[in-house]
């Protein structure tokens, strides 16, 4: 029962997204690449909106990107995040052309700006769940 003290929202992986979540466990950010036309898409989903293929390969992202926008959260909407306040949620343009969202750790709020270079890192949230985080590129 001790593990069930985790009081944050848990993802419920689907057949479409299971490789993404499994990749995070191995500290890899995996993106879907359409096997039909080669387009990279995110978040994981069944179909390519360009060619309608459902065949994908998974490619490992370089893990580098630039801040597109952000918010600094001061209010915990569920109790599990109370101890982390305030935290920065950054939306990031990855080199692969898609965006990701994650907590940006260790950045001075006044340093935040569009285009700030960041890199992807990983953090074990609980047994069986690793989440992506971001760190300002040094």
């Amino acid at each position, binding site marked *: 029962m001790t593990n069930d003290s985790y009081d*944050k*929202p*848990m*993802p*419920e*992986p*689907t057949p479409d*997204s299971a490789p993404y979540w499994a990749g995070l466990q191995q500290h890899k950010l995996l993106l879907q690449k359409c096997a039909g036309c080669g387009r990279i898409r*995110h*978040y*994981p*989903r069944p179909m390519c909106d360009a060619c309608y293929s459902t065949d994908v390969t998974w490619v490992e992202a370089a893990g580098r990107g630039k801040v*597109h*926008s*952000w*918010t*600094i*959260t*001061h*209010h915990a*909407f*569920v109790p599990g*995040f109370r101890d*982390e306040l*305030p*935290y920065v*949620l950054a*939306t990031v343009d990855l080199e692969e052309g*898609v*965006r*990701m*969202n*994650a*907590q940006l750790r260790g950045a001075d709020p006044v340093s935040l*700006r*569009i285009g700030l270079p960041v890199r992807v890192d990983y953090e074990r*949230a609980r047994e069986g*769940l690793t*989440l*992506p985080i971001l760190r300002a590129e040094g």
Partner: protein
Amino acid sequence: MSLREVGAVTGVGETAYSRDSGRSVLALQLEASLNAIRDAGLDPKDIDGIIPYAGAVVAEDFVTNFGIPDLRFSATTPLGGASCVAGIQAALAAIKAGICRHVLLPIGRNGSSGGRIGMRVQQMPQFRVVGEFEMPLGAIAPAQLYAPMARRHMELYGTTSRQLGEIAVSTRGNAILHGNAMMTRPMTIDDHQASRMISDPLRLLDCSLESDGGAAIVVSGAEYARDLRKRPVYVTGIAEGHPDSPSAITQRPDMTRLGLAKAAPKAFAMAGVTPADIDVAEIYDCFTYIVLCQLEDIGFCKKGEGGPFVESGAIRLGGELPINTHGGLLSQAHVVGMNHVVELVRQLRGEAGPVQVTDAEIGLVTGYGDMGDGSVAIMRRG
């Protein structure tokens, strides 16, 4: 083929707005509906179409409680806060097709005493993608999901928190004048600036209320609207619009543009008017920034100029475009924007009392929902 003048809003109704209604959601919706139906001079058994807000209450509940003998049309338009105005489009389409004459659009909820927003949205299918990929990271509530849109607007265009504050302050002023509003204490820009940060740049006073209450309207075919109790308010232009990347704001090509930007030109073309013709507008205001962005997406000002536009006093009563004359979701109550439709109809009937916009003939109402869905209706007094 167009929905222009196909129908009119013939009845509007509300319940009292409170923090704890002590009543069931269905009871709230029935009271608001009965008020709207009687406002139109109709009997509940005249209703032959129902578009409930997607949720706990279904069309069958109204058939059961009103004894409706021949319901011919029911549907839902699950666009979150854009549902109510999108529902008017669905009602008009059904009327135009000859399926029904008088469509009831009810909404009501115990948004304060019941489930709070952070937990509530997790149940909505429109939040499924965000639920899997963003909520586990700590991006849970709409304030957190929407704040990056506001932040990017600020970074690109120099929009300020004080400018967002002007929206909260002017809306509060309207609520106080209006009389039927939850928030009755005057607010200044300094009050707004002193309110605690929720998810930067959105402060507490940038956020809408959580309310218990209900509101409803009746939309009738134009040929039936003429002979009813109140002056009809005709719908001259209407559209819904879905943004690119409608499941996650994170992936949106242009984060400062909403689905409304696609819908508004269609609605204006249908109505044959321009933004300059609008006398009064009720703009969906779940957050102050969402108002500012919609003002731009509609074309009341250019993209990026929403801050100076609101700061000029344009949106105040007596300004060039009074908005949210009832106090909106920010200060009247959060009933998912049906109160915006109710208020616009009252404005165009000349029934708006202390917040009446002088000679209001043409008005506009919007909805905004989920990850940026938009809806807009342009109406004229009959």
